[in-house]
């Protein structure tokens, strides 16, 4: 008979904060962690897009309209890409397997600014020869590298979700907190206003709001405008939920205790009510990021979002509207796959967070 396993003293939970417990529960959920890792990779790539992308997002290859994906092959000790020869007719290409060039790392190429600050021309990989392009995901109708544009586009598409969430949740929490804490007519007024905003079909509101802005705005302005529009719609639903939680929290004794200490109303809301909604807010935020990403996609897809030549996943997909293109050049759907994976990853993570935040599921 085996000897009994020594009794290990249970790990002391006395010093674990609620956040640590939350993290421990989250770690046990594989799919959530998987989603989280994917998101971390995506955001890191977006952060270093200029460096990782072999080409600039504006660079057009006049000999490479609808260039097919070129995948590096191993030849000897080198990864090589072949040269492509354009065939007569509608953008058909043929690889020349014997005319290759090795891929080099840290090559000089199109200039870019890392984090919008550091000017550089060094790219992670490339051939350094425009006749031997590396189009991992092919090229679009203007001969621009789909992969590079996907990376540049992720900067916009991924950040719009985070910034939008930050804005709308900040407003939603403060307004919802005020509404629920004070209740009474303040509450009625704010809630009726929320319902007013929510009752307007979001897409029409977006488009009509967009119409109030002048055309020909710079990309930065459009970007800001999209964030503001999406947040303007998004805060109302958040405010409603927070208001409901605040309504129940305000009856808690610790709120009375804070009042008995002489604390101000606003500080009670910010210090005592809102922190108690965080476990919900984090989950809700994670699950709502996809709506902001999709919102940008919709706007750009409709042509009122990020304008060419700037890349976003939405306006890249515009090219895939054409079924003829889609049939012949399926790589134009790459941004769709990117959107799909990102949204899925956010949902995986959000579901896991929700389970981890629910203490009953221990």
């Amino acid at each position, binding site marked *: 008979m085996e000897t009994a396993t020594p009794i290990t003293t249970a790990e002391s939970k006395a010093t674990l904060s*609620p956040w640590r417990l939350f993290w421990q529960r989250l770690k046990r959920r594989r799919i959530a962690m998987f989603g989280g890792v994917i998101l971390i990779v995506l955001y890191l790539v977006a952060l270093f897009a200029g460096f990782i992308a072999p080409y600039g997002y504006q660079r057009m290859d006049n000999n490479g309209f609808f260039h097919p994906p070129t995948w590096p092959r191993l030849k000897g000790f080198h990864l090589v890409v072949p040269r492509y020869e354009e065939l007569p007719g509608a953008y058909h290409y043929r690889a020349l397997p014997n005319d290759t060039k090795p891929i080099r790392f840290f090559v000089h190429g199109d200039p870019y600014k890392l984090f919008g600050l550091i000017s550089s021309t060094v790219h992670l990989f490339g051939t350094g020869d425009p006749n031997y392009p590396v189009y991992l995901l092919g090229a679009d109708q203007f001969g621009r590298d789909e992969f590079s544009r996907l990376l540049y586009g992720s900067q916009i598409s991924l950040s719009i979700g985070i910034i939008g969430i930050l804005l709308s949740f900040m407003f939603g929490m403060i307004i919802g907190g005020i509404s629920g804490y004070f209740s009474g007519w303040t509450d009625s007024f704010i809630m009726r206003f929320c319902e007013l905003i929510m009752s307007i079909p979001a897409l029409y509101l977006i488009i009509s709001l967009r119409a109030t802005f002048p055309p020909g705005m710079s990309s930065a302005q459009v970007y800001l405008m999209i964030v503001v529009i999406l947040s303007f719609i998004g805060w109302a639903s958040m405010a409603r939920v927070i208001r409901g939680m605040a309504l129940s929290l305000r009856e808690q*004794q610790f709120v*009375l*205790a804070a009042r*008995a*200490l*002489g*604390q*101000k109303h606003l500080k009670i809301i910010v210090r005592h009510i809102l922190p108690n909604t965080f476990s919900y807010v984090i989950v809700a935020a994670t699950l709502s990021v996809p709506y902001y990403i999709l919102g940008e996609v919709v706007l750009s897809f409709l042509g009122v979002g990020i304008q060419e030549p700037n890349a976003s996943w939405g306006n890249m997909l515009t090219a895939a509207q054409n079924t003829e293109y889609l049939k012949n050049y399926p790589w134009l759907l790459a941004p769709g796959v990117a959107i799909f994976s990102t949204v899925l990853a956010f949902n995986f993570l959000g579901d896991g967070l929700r389970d981890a935040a629910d203490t009953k599921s221990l």
Partner: protein
Amino acid sequence: MNLLEIKNLKMDFGKNADALRAVDGVSLTIGTGETVCLVGESGCGKTVTALSIARLVPAPPANYVGGEILLNGQDVLKMSNGQLREIRGGVVSYIFQEPGASLNPVFRIGNQIKESLKLHRPEKLRGGDAPSPNSRGEGVTPTPLRRGVAATLRGLLKKSSDAEIIRLLKLVGIPAPESRIKNYPFEMSGGMQQRVMIAMALASEPKLLVADEPTTALDVTIQAQILELLHGLKQRLGMAILLITHNLGIVGDMADRVAVMYAGQIVELSPAKELLRRPLHPYTRALMNSVPKLGRATRWGEATDEPAREDARPTRLQAIPGNVPRIGNFPPGCRFAPRCPIAKPECSQKNPDLVEVEPGRFVRCPFWKIE
């Protein structure tokens, strides 16, 4: 001047036709360093009266129709919001029944005590080197900017502010306060949580501590500890305590004076020892008869073989017949009359006044002499 003087306080819930009179003409004084107990059944207006001292009952629905609450000679009912925030915590501190619910579950207890300090004694958070008022004016006066920078630096170093929190936790008898400071409320037992609440209440050095059934949610041994703690603190810090309870056992240990409330009114107000020895109002008597006592055999004590002696014959625990009248539906005349064993026909005609029948003893019953 008394620390607290409640004069003929009348408070309704709701307005006009819907008004329900929750507190009806309560007068009560508390002197500096005095302990007063407020006793009564659930719903008789004890808590509402106590919360009114710092005007903590949300208005609406609360509606003060009459009377005044003089705290240090100032009428609380006439104070502005800013003044109220000053006295809340500053002059009156509260501890409540459920210590677990009174602490914010998402903050470490050290931070919660710090909040109280920040509001009322911010100088304690700046550490020991804060300039005392009389040392100002000599040497170099620090400019506001320089003081701000210094405060920020000290804030970064942080340690100094913990000293006062640790002192407070020690004061309320929490062992190893240095490590407890980082605990979350859910990591503590009910007794410890209540001690933290008391530390929070004491952090602002109040003149009056209102303890609203501070031990009801705790088990008996912890009850005794907490009460002992309150008693000791009161003597060391010289603050007054208003203790709300429905446990007459506590009264004897703690109180200097007792006010018994029934249906929104004080029915008897008396020094604690005399009240316990010889209750005058029929309600107080009934209340005391309904407390089971050791040594007085009850039906449950029949298991002994010895023949029961005449005076130890099992007696049924005396409950007060009937129910507490619903607020807004008080009987005419004396509110206790329908349940009173000595009620006379005239009792339901006119509600008697609170009369001083002996020095320091007030009773709202003209027939208090009848046994």
